[in-house]
């Protein structure tokens, strides 16, 4: 797997996201208040608009979540599973491999499109 260096982890505010270009694709990179870093598609699977990095980061129970700014579906950042479909059908937000090395965030090539925990990336802890 090839890895693209995206930015310093400190560039991303806590519970915020930035947008990165990885292999010509738009990837939203999220850093939670707990210090974990996740990467997901920028494309919102419901509206089709490229907006995910502009959504609110938060939690549902102990699950880190990203909420689409368009129609407010809630996605589990660890698996991309939709926790609140706002009445619609279930859709998955594809996730990307991501790790933090020497204070830099790296996103791996190739998204995961399944929502099963086995295909989900291990979140990288950077020590909150």
């Amino acid at each position, binding site marked *: 797997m090839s890895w693209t260096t995206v930015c310093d982890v400190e560039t991303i505010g806590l519970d915020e996201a930035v947008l990165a270009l990885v292999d010509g694709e738009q990837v939203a990179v999220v850093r939670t208040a707990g210090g974990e870093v996740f990467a997901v598609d920028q494309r919102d699977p419901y509206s089709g608009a490229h907006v995910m990095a502009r959504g609110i980061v938060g*939690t549902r129970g102990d699950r880190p979540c990203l909420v689409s700014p368009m129609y407010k579906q809630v996605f589990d950042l660890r698996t991309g599973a939709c926790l609140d479909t706002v009445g619609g059908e279930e859709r998955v937000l594809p996730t990307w491999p991501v790790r933090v090395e020497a204070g830099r965030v790296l996103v791996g090539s190739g998204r995961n499109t399944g929502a099963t925990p086995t295909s989900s990336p291990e979140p990288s802890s950077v020590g909150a």
Partner: protein
Amino acid sequence: MTHHPKQLVVVGGGMVARRLVDALRERDTDGRWAITLLCEEPRAPYDRVALTSYFSGRDPDDLSLGGAEIWDDPLVTIRRGVAATRVDREAREVTCSDGRVLPFDELVLATGSSAAVPPVPGTDLQGCFVYRTIDDVAALRQWVEALRERHDRPLRGAVVGGGLLGLEAAGALQALEVASHVVEFAPRLMPIQVDDGGGEALRRLITGLGVDVRTGTATSRISGERGRVHRMHFADGPALPVDVVVLATGVRPRDELARACGLEIGERGGVVVDDACRTTDPAISAIGEVACIEGRVWGIVAPGYAMAEVTADRLLGGGATFPGADTATKLKLLGVDVASFGDAFGTEPGSLDVVVSDPVAGVYKKLVLSDDARTLRGGILVGDASAYAGLRPMLGRELPGDPVSYLLPEGVGAAPSAELPDDATVCSCNNVSAGTVRGSVTEHACTDLPAVKACTRAGTSCGSCLPLVKRLMTTELERSGVEVSDALCEHLDLSRAQLFDVVRVGQLRSFTEVLERHGRGRGCDICKPVVASVLASLWNEHPLTQGRAGLQDTNDRYLANMQKDGSYSVVPRIPGGEITPEGLIVIGEIARDFGLYTKITGGQRIDLFGARLDQLPDIWRRLVDAGFESGHAYGKSLRTVKSCVGSTWCRYGVQDSVGLAIALEERYRGLRSPHKIKLGVSGCARECAEARGKDVGVIATDHGWNLYVGGNGGFTPRHAQLLAEDLPTDELVRAIDRYLMYYVRTADRLQRTAAWQEDHEGGLDAIRAVVLEDSLGIAADLDAAMAQHVDTYVDEWAAALEDPKTLARFTTFVNAPDAHDDTLAYVAERGQARPATPAERSGPVLVAGTTLEVRS
């Protein structure tokens, strides 16, 4: 039914007598007792506790207690306007004022109290009143109305006595538009219920209602002129001119019948009874305010009701005894919250006080706890007694959690209802337990407050337990799957109004602080924007600085409105819809240069659609340089003030509606609120600005402006309702200031003014009282908050352009600063760009109508 029921004579048709009759008739299914009730007053028992509501135009009939059917019961005889004059214990007979003699098997004295008249010369003058019966208050009202006919100056009144009753009477005088003074001998108001700190807070609240307060003052005499009250004189200080005087210096048990027939009388009056309410004559009982039980006389209704229940039980052969009572009291005066309960002064040894005092907010709260700070012994709440209903049942029990949390605004953090044991008394007037209230939901399928009240009787007397009853009901409903909570989300249990208060009182400045103090976890898309909005309303700081950008919802986050394809629209402010030709040209040029679709909105301004995120700062720069600013189309804040052309051009216009609309728009621009706010101003009653469809609508009249509030278009259209008529401009603006600020403080998340107004306790009338008469004593606060908003307003676009950190948020890719979002695709339609449909995106023909990149 037995053929010869025993004779029960009840003397005194008051509240407690009525409870006895109800209780006995309910339980005496075999008809063992025939009841005769003697009422000295010319009417059946009524709700004395609610006496003051007689002034708010209520019919005496509205004060009736329970149904009137009881008087048709063949076993109940009521004699109105008939007093008992003598009791013959030997013969077991009562002599009545109408000459009749009634034999009895049992006699119950329920003669209550009479108002005490202080030993001051002049109390017999015309214009001096006591405050105890319907006839008293009717005479008082008549006197005031007759005086008003005669004088065209404001009337002046004084109340002797600054206790519960005196303050209620002062409120009643104010309601009759009589400027009132309260004169209290003790050094503070309500000396029996509150301590010095509470007294001071109370004084401020009462003074805020326009009532003049003199404590530590002895009234020496009342002087008259032609037999009518004229002046009040004091031990020191100048005399006070008065037109009416109310004496509220206490009550005296009406124990005269008992004295005359030789029953034992308490040291300070009252008929001595044992814990089964029997006097020294076993055939005679005494209940209510006339009884001296456990060595004391009770001046409140709840112990009286308990005595009535005990007596009913005993008459039917039961062994019930007086369960004791607490002195908990709550002042019933609109806008002045005072409650006192349990050992409020901490007289028990080893008591510990927890005090929260906030003179600015007008709040003083004290809890008295056991020395380990766990068990609640009593408390005093002044200025905000919302915790009272929840705290009172916890008397003598361990308070779960930090005691201070119970003193924060509106029961923040405290959820005593959840832990309240089933046997805790919730409604002490009617002795209803938490379990009974819960049962009304679970077993009797009650789903709203009226149903629970009807089913359990809780909350049907003084009403002070209602908040708690409601909470219990809500919790129970939720348990059965009905959603009623006003908690924001899993991270914050507060309603938006509560949140506003804790942020304001605690001077909180960040989301983290709010969540750490009052919530849990890390937050979500529900609580973050709400907290951001509250912080913005209070501190008026830029939405994208201080780490707040991540809290903002979709549109606020980039100070623009997100469109279906992820691009943005830009709406510059055009106050009142008035725009110069130059302004129109600039907007046109900008739209052309950036290839934006333009449309005139329903809010009288121009919307520019299809801007990429990274183009927003460049577009704003051009607009700001030309003198435009943000129109806040993205914010839960003021949108527009729509206007008609008004007297400037229109041949019917009577006022300058455009001028006022612009002034209002510039005043309230940027004000963050629970939901968006829209205003309208029409220059005459033809109403071309559709002002009555707005949150605040202003319509010109020949004499000034009519102010309408709570209008709405949208999903549930509503016409705004008239708040005030013919206001001059400065008063109009002040009224709108207060209305809006009050809404901002107390509405729920995403609740427009129409719904807020409808939900507000007391409805529009109560809101009007707050806005125009300062009934809550918060007007100065609201005015100051609005003044601060106006003073600190800055254009959010211009401020964003100044701040490099904020501007950095508008870069598209963190690792490719020069690349653009290439997923946006447009086709031309009617000469402008619009987003391409999915079919158009994949199809062969894609028309580039604009300067934006078109995907091929």
